[in-house]
């Protein structure tokens, strides 16, 4: 590397030679060989050519191409084409040019070298990312660059990351003094995460006893904190799983819980909602790609309508003839679920469909060391909103009142002039529609395939039965209880065993309390 730096210096002194050397460098790309490309990256970084940064950036993003006659061209993020040798714009990248391939190792190398270059980027998010990359890479030669960046940094948050980066680098330097190292250890101890542990662990090897001891003590302290954090993290995962369970089960809590219909096609309503999202997103992709983030907002009411209408059709067409005959209902709705699955398979094909995440649902953020993904957070919020809305509908509207009246005492309600048949259809439609909007949310975390519904139907029944048939609050509590119990058990027992244990516990519980957590009391409940 140093040799090339010297070469580059010479090259800079004699300009024609510089062009020649860049030409040689670029010729390496034509070899289509990763080790040649790696050399080329180093040489370009050292060359000091004005187009060096954009060249490397183009390589990273698959925008660098080689023509069969050895010409090298690249395009920038806006799609403008340039000649790599001269850096001057050209009309277009010639036809027949092959993209230069990269692999993980090369991209890691590029990111590390770009990391050092970007420490002073104007965009604060980029600066922070660069500092984190350098911290993780722990390349001692980056220390001067980190110190310069630190002296100029205005943002206190990024300055803190830079100090931690400096500390990690100092620890890796054999020539740093004991005081410097002790200070570095305390800075990293305050950072208190996996990266800090990695840096500290690297420092223990070959360090003087006192330093190694200090570093080990810091590691133990961090690990203790991380354990507490992990427990909290598990509770959050449990909440998130619980919200998914609740979302899937909440529609069933109405059709099964309130109406008493064993609806095996419930999962397919969820699936229909997910496919509605897919169709809406396709339309957005085709006609309004700029407004893609709003696709879910449009999909929500449509999914409710689609699943709700299908639900009403099922109720009017099949279920109303089978009230009071649970076994027949079970078989008939199971048949309906198979028909719906195969219909979707025929219409959309058997393969998964791609449903994109809007930007506000991608990525994660840090909350007191807990890593929380936006997608999951939004699903928890969304579930709570849906639940609250449903409660309000049941308790505070006249439709809710009629619904409760019909399900509690059909004949009495009918004598009061309530059109029970229509209320039945609407109630079933409501339950199905809510399953539909659950599908919109689930399409964000699961795959959209004709089998989507099947994976949720058993869990949904489990939640409703555990919570107590007919009780919305029971469903709420049971979903979160099952979710959290599952997630607390998973790290200990593994995903497979955790699921089995939960099922066994549930069966035992139902033996003891057949009506679930919150059993409905009163005359409405036939014994």
């Amino acid at each position, binding site marked *: 590397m140093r040799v090339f730096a010297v070469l580059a210096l010479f090259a800079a002194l004699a300009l024609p030679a510089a062009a020649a050397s860049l030409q040689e460098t670029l010729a390496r790309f034509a070899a289509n060989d990763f*080790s040649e490309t790696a050399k080329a990256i180093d040489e370009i970084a050292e060359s000091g050519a004005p187009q060096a940064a954009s060249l490397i950036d183009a390589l990273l993003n698959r925008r660098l191409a080689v023509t069969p006659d050895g010409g090298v061209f690249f395009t920038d993020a806006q799609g403008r084409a340039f000649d790599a040798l001269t850096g001057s714009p050209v009309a277009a990248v010639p036809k027949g040019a092959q993209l230069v391939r990269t692999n993980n*190792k090369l991209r890691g190398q590029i990111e590390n070298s770009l990391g050092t270059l970007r420490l002073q980027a104007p965009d604060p998010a980029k600066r922070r990312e660069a500092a984190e990359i350098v911290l993780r890479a722990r390349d001692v030669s980056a220390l001067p660059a980190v110190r310069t960046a630190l002296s100029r940094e205005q943002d206190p948050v990024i300055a803190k990351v830079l100090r931690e980066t400096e500390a990690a680098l100092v620890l890796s330097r054999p020539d740093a003094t004991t005081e410097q190292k002790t200070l570095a250890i305390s800075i990293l101890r305050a950072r208190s995460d996996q990266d800090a542990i990695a840096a500290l662990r690297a420092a223990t090897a070959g360090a003087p006893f006192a330093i190694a001891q200090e570093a080990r003590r810091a590691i133990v302290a961090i690990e203790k904190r991380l354990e507490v954090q992990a427990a909290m993290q*598990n509770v959050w995962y449990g909440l998130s799983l619980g919200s998914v369970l609740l979302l899937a089960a909440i529609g069933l809590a109405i059709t099964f819980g309130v109406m008493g219909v064993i609806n095996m096609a419930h999962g397919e309503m969820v699936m229909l909602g997910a496919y509605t999202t897919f169709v809406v997103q396709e339309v957005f992709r085709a006609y309004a790609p700029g407004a893609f983030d709003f696709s879910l907002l449009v999909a929500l009411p449509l999914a409710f309508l689609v699943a709700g209408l299908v639900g009403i059709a099922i109720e009017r067409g099949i279920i109303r003839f089978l009230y009071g005959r649970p076994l027949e209902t079970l078989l008939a709705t199971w048949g309906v679920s198979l028909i719906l699955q*195969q219909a979707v398979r025929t219409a959309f094909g058997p393969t998964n469909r791609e449903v994109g995440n809007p930007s506000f649902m991608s990525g994660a953020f840090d909350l007191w060391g807990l890593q929380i993904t936006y997608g999951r957070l939004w699903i928890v919020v969304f579930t709570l909103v849906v639940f609250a809305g449903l409660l309000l509908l049941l308790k505070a509207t006249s439709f809710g009142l009629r619904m409760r009246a019909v399900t509690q005492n059909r004949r009495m309600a009918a004598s009061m002039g309530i059109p029970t048949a229509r209320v039945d259809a609407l109630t079933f439609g409501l339950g199905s529609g809510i399953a539909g909007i659950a599908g919109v949310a689930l399409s964000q*975390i*699961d795959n959209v395939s004709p089998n989507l519904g099947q994976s949720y139907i058993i869990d949904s029944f489990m939640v409703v039965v555990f919570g107590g048939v007919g009780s919305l609050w029971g469903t709420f509590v049971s979903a979160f209880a099952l979710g959290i119990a599952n997630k607390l058990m998973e790290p200990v027992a593994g*995903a497979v065993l955790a699921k089995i244990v939960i099922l066994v516990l549930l069966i035992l519980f139902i033996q003891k309390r057949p009506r679930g957590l919150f059993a409905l009391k009163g005359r409405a409940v036939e014994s």
Partner: protein
Amino acid sequence: MSFTRRSMLGAVSLLASLSLGVGAARAEDTIKVGILHSLSGTMAISETTLKDVMLMLIEEQNKKGGLLGKKIEAVVVDPASNWPLFAEKARELIAQNKVAAVFGCWTSVSRKSVLPVFKELNSILFYPVQYEGEESERNVFYTGAAPNQQAIPAVDYLMSEEGGGVKRWVLAGTDYVYPRTTNKILEAYLLAKGVAKEDIMINYTPFGHSDWQTIVADIVKFGSAGKKTAVVSTINGDANVPFYKELANKGVKATDIPVVAFSVGEEELAGVDTKNLLGHLAAWNYFQSVDTPENKEFIAKWHEFTKNPKRVTNDPMEAHVIGFNMWVKAVEKAGTTDPDKVIDAIIGVEVPNLTGGTSKMLPNHHITKPVMIGEIREDGQFDVVWQTKDLVPGDAWSDFLDGSKDLEADWVEKKCGNFNTKTGKCGG
């Protein structure tokens, strides 16, 4: 009910054709080929494509004049992702439809379920999917990869300087026979290569697992011990999408912790937003992006046949292409479709594969294939970053498991699928 009715109909039609005396003549006009892939149920997602590619291959062969002067006729049945139904449908194909060979199955359990039928009725099955090995049957030809043609080379690549010099391994899989056996082989292999026991983490999840938060967090934690870490994924089809979504959301990049998958191909990626998966890997014997004239021609034909220029191609499809062409050559060589003669004739048959090489059927009923490692690109295709120089012969019995390292399959000289080289006896 429907079954008895169908078989009665079959009997009636058989009687009718016999009495008319044309049935026999008609049956000789065509050679029937059975296609045993699920078109409904959970496995339809993967298997429907294989049915389509078989129909295309048969149509093409008929355009070339058929086989032995006769047209080939495809008999498609739908075992509906139901394992016992696979055996029933296989029996129907062989006994009732009198097919000359069957192309089918995806999961190992469906293959195991049809095995006794193929043995009893002495027919031929071409199995196109990568699998866990530890099997070699006289009536089955394995055109997918054995573990030494996929898993072991992938691990070798990651261990190499070029692959990042991985020192710590997460073996994550769905809880069933293929991942369990593959991981057992890989664990034995890694230990033999000097990897410490505490540097291997093995994790199993149920089918269709969709909540990956805990496991991804565990992987990240395991991967931050200061040693380069990689995930070897034998996670089954459907669970992959939420797994990759969780990885992307947690910001796990391929440059930090690469994931190499054995069951994720072009078809599976069609359902994922790939821009966050750049650089994660897959190991196969074929990628759609491979730039050879054979592959270009195949893709063009596929798009024309399906009338969909976006349909992707994948590894098991290529396995069917190779398997079908081998069968055609063997039938031509034997001059008959009689299973016994074809089984003998097909050993040593060579046909060009789609990646520029020539695959050969070996005496252990596996074939030679190149092994390729691909990195996921933004467009859902793979960049081949590494491949074996020569074709790798498939090994039925792993050399890294205690129970199977002395076993050898050879249907030419030993006439045995599990010959023990130590005791000199055939396990039968």
